[in-house]
């Protein structure tokens, strides 16, 4: 499914968060949005998924090529997991299927399928508070996959995890994208994640948020490994691109929540 972002601008009261963003995300492509805090990357992701109405501009989706059985074309994976603490792992996945006309058997089959895909089958009856952060995010991924999304919208999905878990999940994401050819928009401030997962890395500039540069990485995702010299070079280039912005962001007093 193709996503077209046309002339999107957004203001929060006095602050101009995004200005004239134009971007097309092709089917099967993983696009990473990077930039220092306050550059509007999360705002843009909210606008793409229809969770925030832009001040001007629009986002178009081409409905032709939805995957089979797709219940929710634009599906988020959240930084804070957003799991219901009163539901089990299976219950949290069931939650997003219950309002669709699926038979009980179809629903259970989907739950089993995504649990198996994320290696959570043994944890189906556990409650979120019993799970580690990494497991919680796997539940978030399983829940997103259960609705067979056309585009995954991932909002810093690894930022709340410790460094070791991050490495493990990064490999799993990389497998997922390589295996399924999933279309995804991946917001991160971690350049390493961006160069491991994305076909194109969109670097944003801040105040107002505009696209500074779009950086293509031509290595197939399944061939990318930690420490691959080309990837390190890409990471270095991206860092040079956003370094000054990051320094400015770091020195700024907080004036927007």
């Amino acid at each position, binding site marked *: 499914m193709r996503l077209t972002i046309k002339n999107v601008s957004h203001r929060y009261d006095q602050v101009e968060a995004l200005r004239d963003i134009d971007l097309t995300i092709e089917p099967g492509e993983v696009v990473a949005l990077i930039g220092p805090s306050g550059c509007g990357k999360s705002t843009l992701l909210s606008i793409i998924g229809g*969770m925030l109405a832009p001040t001007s501009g629009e986002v178009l989706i081409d409905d032709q090529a939805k995957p089979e059985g797709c219940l929710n074309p634009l*599906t*988020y994976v959240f930084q804070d997991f*957003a799991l*219901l603490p*009163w539901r089990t792992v299976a219950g949290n996945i069931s*939650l997003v299927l219950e*309002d669709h006309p699926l038979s009980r058997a179809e629903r259970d089959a989907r739950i089993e399928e995504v649990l198996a895909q994320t290696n959570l089958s043994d944890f189906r009856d556990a409650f979120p508070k019993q799970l580690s952060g990494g497991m919680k995010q796997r539940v978030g991924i399983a829940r997103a996959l259960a*609705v067979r999304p056309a585009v995954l919208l991932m909002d810093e999905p690894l930022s709340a995890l410790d460094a070791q878990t991050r490495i493990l999940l990064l490999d799993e994401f990389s497998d997922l994208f390589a295996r399924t050819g999933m279309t995804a928009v991946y917001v991160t401030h971690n350049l390493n994640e961006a160069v491991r997962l994305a076909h194109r890395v969109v670097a944003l500039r801040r105040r107002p948020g505009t696209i500074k540069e779009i950086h293509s990485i031509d290595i197939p995702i399944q061939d990318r490994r930690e420490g691959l010299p080309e990837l390190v070079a890409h990471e270095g280039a991206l860092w040079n691109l956003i370094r000054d912005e990051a320094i400015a962001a770091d020195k700024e007093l907080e004036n927007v929540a």
Partner: protein
Amino acid sequence: MSRDVANSSSENADNKVRFRATGFNPKANPVAAWASFVVVIVLWQLGSSTGFISDLAMPSPVAVAEALWKLIVSGDLWRHLGASLQRLAVGWILGTVAGLVVGFMVGMFTWARSPGVALVSALFPIPKIALLPLFIIWFGIGEPSKFATIAFGVFFPTVINTFGGVDNVARNLIRMGQSFDMPMWSVIRKIILPGALPTILSGFRISSSIAIILLIAAEMIGAQYGIGALILAAGQLYQTDQLIAGVVVLSLLGLCVSWLLGRLDRWLLGWR
């Protein structure tokens, strides 16, 4: 290097590091809890037996137990307790249901928010018993005026707790539901209601104790039967043993209500 350290430490006069994080950590002790009851009752009985506590001012525990037993055997207790429980149940349920509905609306809809908060803030501080005479004019001296007093008293804290609970449901969970295109009714039923439930249930503890206070007050103002009427009548006849027996029944009633709410908590909030 490590050898040097070991040498120097053995030569110096070492002081053990003192453990400083003591106290501020009270623990539960069920034996002490029950023992405190026993101690108070034994001291009270001793005071009465030795004449230190005048019988007229405060009957002995044994006398209270006898009075309670008489009330049970004669069946008077059940008549009074039955009338009280019925008022308590009807009044509390009316007030709670209305309070939950209004609380949810105030918690969720902009149009209900400011008017609801303004009215509740203005009416909440009124001692509801002051309205009993008005309710008697409206509904008569019988049961409906007592139901109305209790319901009115229960209504306001329930509204405040319910919308507080709804406000406290994590916004990210609601946004998650919306991002999966869950219909509004599903978001309310599966996300907001369970998320607000802990606050609502702790509100039940407040509202149930308010209901008991108003029940007794209403029964003292005008009722033939009821624990409040029993206590008032005993006081007018200087039957302090029966009076204290009525108070003991109230204490037991409060404990039962709190036990029931505890069970409800465990049943509905097992996930915590």
